[in-house]
């Protein structure tokens, strides 16, 4: 018999049996207790590998190009934050860098670092620490919001000049549902048990 707790109201329950793909909710506050995915490590590892490739593409190529009277400018994620730095807006630049580049990169990289060894059954140092950081970076990773930002910026520029979507924009479009699926399929409790050598 295993005791688990509700993250939101601190109620303590005996871990119920939940069929694969199901979820358990707290009876007191209605919060999600956990989702059970017995193949969570395999599925998430596959999704995170895909996400890593798409993230690289999204960072290396421009996501929008802007053409006006024969002049073209284009922007990647990094050049966007650099443009803010050039205008002296260091705080805003740091915020954009943190939420669109650093946090997703850490989330993807650390998940690879954790899920790879757990799946293939070898040990790397600091697995627990790495997985702790995954949970800590998640609220600051805001790529899906950035995608809406691209759409709004595109609309605002559309009547001023010609807007050309770049490869990175398509990579973004794929990356966001894949990252969402990965965090949805991640049964963190099972990963913690594997890291602790319990299961």
């Amino acid at each position, binding site marked *: 018999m295993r*005791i*688990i*707790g*509700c*993250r*939101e*109201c*601190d*109620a*303590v*329950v*005996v871990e*119920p049996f939940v069929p694969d793909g199901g979820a*358990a*909710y707290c*009876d*007191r*506050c*209605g919060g999600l*207790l956990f989702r059970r995915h017995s193949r969570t490590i395999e599925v998430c590892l596959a999704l995170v590998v895909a996400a890593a490739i798409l993230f690289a593409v999204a960072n290396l190529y421009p996501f*929008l*190009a*802007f053409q*006006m*009277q024969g*002049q073209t*400018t*284009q922007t990647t994620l990094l*050049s*966007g934050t650099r*443009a*803010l730095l050039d*205008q002296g*807006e260091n*705080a*805003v630049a740091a915020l*954009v860098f943190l*939420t*669109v580049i650093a946090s997703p990169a850490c989330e993807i990289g650390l998940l690879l670092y954790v899920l790879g060894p757990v799946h293939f059954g070898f040990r790397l140092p600091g697995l*627990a620490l790495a*997985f*702790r950081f995954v949970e*800590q970076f998640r609220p600051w990773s*805001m790529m899906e*919001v*950035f995608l*809406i*930002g*691209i*759409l*709004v*910026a595109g*609309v*605002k*520029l559309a009547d*001023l000049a010609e807007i050309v979507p770049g490869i990175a924009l398509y990579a973004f479009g794929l990356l966001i549902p894949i990252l969402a699926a990965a965090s949805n399929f991640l049964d*963190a*409790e099972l990963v*913690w048990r594997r890291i*602790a050598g319990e299961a």
Partner: protein
Amino acid sequence: MRFSPLVGGPHAQCPVCRLVMKAPAERSEAPLACPRCGATVHRRKPESLARTSAYLIAALICYVPANVYPIMRSTSLGRAQEDTIVSGVVYLYESGMWPLGTIVLIASVVVPIAKIVSLGGLVVSVRRRSRWRPRDRAATFRIIELVGRWSMVDVYVVTILVALVHLGTLANVEVLFGAVFFAAVVVLTILAAESFDPRLIWDVLEEEEGRDVRI
């Protein structure tokens, strides 16, 4: 499926890996170390209400200049125009993009203030040891956590415009003061939500139920 809780017992829950462990005493505030993941475990987030209130007050102060001051200046062929958050929304509606306009209106104007007011309400309700509709208050907090991030849209829009439109006198976009305050509002409200401990909503009910189940 829903499962009933075994309320009570001096226990603490790891904020990171969610391992439930015994706490030395019911009201203990001494931090523990999680035996599974090594994180520091507090039974409740330390100084939760004071921190949340402080972030909320700071966010409220920044909310005013964030909306009053322009967030960017666009220059096109010598014609300069300064945009506030609200005028950006108006522009989207006027160009017939009402779905995007509505998203930005909700994300940039409604969400920050709704978040400050409702989180402030939660803090007051916990301070007053309210027993009023705890499930609905818990649901409110869940929504606050979920929607807060979407306020970043306008910060990203300005970033992208600045990165793309720098053609000198032909067309240029500059970030203005208001954007810094707006970004501050978003970050402060996210920090406020992270500092709030939703378990406090339930503590007052648990005291009166007085049930105690040992782990």
